[in-house]
């Protein structure tokens, strides 16, 4: 009896897992070295299928990469006494430092609103506004400004139609991490979508780390600020005095 029940449950679950996504990344470590100029990541994969390909609906793939969240304040300038001054600020509880969405087609057409809300896929849903201080008439303007500014810096990317899906099985896309990305764990989520619903999801991580020297300097600056200050002074004295001593030596 129990075996039969287990089999029935498995059978019921089977249509959900009828198509399964298998993913690979060109790299899962990004090192912020001295000459870091940004990085391109290739995300590729295949759809594993145990049943026949459904013919009545289209398959779509969505790739979302999300950088570590940050608390942020968005400021709006207004003219005061002739000069432009930050007059209003809106705090955000958390906004991803990096967010890129690549899809096989227009996001609003391939994904239902419900599925978007459940899985928080579109950029707008990845940002959490603070509940306090929303006596403002247009709180949304601040979040929109954040998205607009970060899009212009390449930190937020909405790349519809850039996932290449071949014969409903193989897919690939390239995403660029700009030079201003911060350290941390970047979640890469890949969704298979049919009829507006997510039918399978895969999550993996890309580790973005400062390289050895940069890591050491940052740790020193934050953990041992006194020693770091002394290091800065030592370098200044060493180079400032050393160089002029060297030039004096060269001249004589």
């Amino acid at each position, binding site marked *: 009896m129990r075996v039969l029940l287990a089999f029935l449950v498995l059978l019921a679950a089977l249509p959900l897992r009828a198509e399964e996504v298998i993913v690979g990344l060109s790299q899962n470590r990004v090192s912020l070295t001295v000459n870091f100029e940004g990085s391109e990541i290739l995300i590729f994969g295949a759809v594993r299928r145990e049943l026949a390909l459904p013919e009545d609906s289209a398959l779509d793939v969505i790739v979302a990469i999300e950088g570590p969240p940050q608390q942020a304040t*968005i400021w709006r*300038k207004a003219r005061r006494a002739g000069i432009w001054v930050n007059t209003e600020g809106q705090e955000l509880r958390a906004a991803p430092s990096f967010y890129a969405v690549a899809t096989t087609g227009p996001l609003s057409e391939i994904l239902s609103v419900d599925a978007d809300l459940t899985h928080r896929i579109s950029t707008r849903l990845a940002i959490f506004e603070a509940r306090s201080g929303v006596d403002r008439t247009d709180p949304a303007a601040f979040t929109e400004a954040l998205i607009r500014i970060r899009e212009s810096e390449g930190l937020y990317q909405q790349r519809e139609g850039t996932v290449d899906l071949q014969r409903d099985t193989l897919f690939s896309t390239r995403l660029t991490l700009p030079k201003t990305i911060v350290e941390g764990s970047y979640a890469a989520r890949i969704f298979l979508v049919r009829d507006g619903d997510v039918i399978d999801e895969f999550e993996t991580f890309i580790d973005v780390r400062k390289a050895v020297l940069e*890591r050491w300097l940052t740790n020193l600056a934050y953990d041992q600020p006194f020693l770091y200050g002394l290091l800065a002074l030592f370098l200044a004295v060493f180079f400032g005095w050393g160089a002029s001593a060297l030039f004096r030596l060269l001249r004589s």
Partner: protein
Amino acid sequence: MQIYLPIAETSVNAFTLLGVGGGVGVLSGMFGVGGGFLITPLLFFIGVPPAVAVATGVNQVVASSISGVLAHLKRKTVDIRMGTVLLIGGLIGSLIGIWFFNLMSRLGQIDLIVQLSYVIFLGIIGGLMLQESLRALMRSKNPNAVRRKLHTHIWVHNLPMKMKFRTSGLYISVFPPLLVGVGVGILAAIMGVGGGFVLVPAMIYLLGMPTKVVIGTSLFQVTFVAAFTTMMHAITNQSVDVMLAIFLILGGVIGAQVGTRIGVKLRAEQLRILLALLVLAVCGKIAFDLLWTPSELYSITVAGRF
């Protein structure tokens, strides 16, 4: 070649940085100015966050003034006593400046404060320098013009707590030098400059110090105040970027050597006019950014970043 700055968390072109350091170094060698007041705004223009630009600029001041102060100490052209009084004022001023800097950072107004300070000070200094050098140019053409008297006693010298400054040959109250020091310390912390451009005129015109000890004594004060301010920025807001500093310093020391060489060969008055115009141009650019309607009204500050 791009260089990743670990504290600013962005990359900038290494040659741009060497160029900024070197160009300002040439000017400082030619005119004997520290150049902090040009480095910091130039760093804003190439996209270094203002907080990092200020803290790293002040670190660079240490490098550009250390060899000068050592040379002056050797030649005994430093009024140590006056320098110490100015320095005590400078440390107090630096603490006030750091406190104000961090307060304004939290309120999201630090960029504005730094830019406004630059507009005001570069405007005043550039204007005075232009006026002075034009006058000097006229004077050199007309040698019979009356020269101004340098040392005059004014009321501030007669405040209480008089002190003898033997090297400068002065017997004045400690308050004027102390207050001058405080003012320079505040500027160092907020603007990332040494403050020589304020200190030198104040020492000559306000304190009435003899010219031969002015440069050495001001370098003495500036070096220590800049060192202290670097420490305070490093400890309170972690905004000193060592990687950025190294490139600025390397460019700066080489540039200064070149500048000294050029300065000997060219005519000083005309160069001074050029420097004044350059200072006014930087001032004008920052003022323009404050007055002109920005293309993006919104900006982002992230907790724990610059």
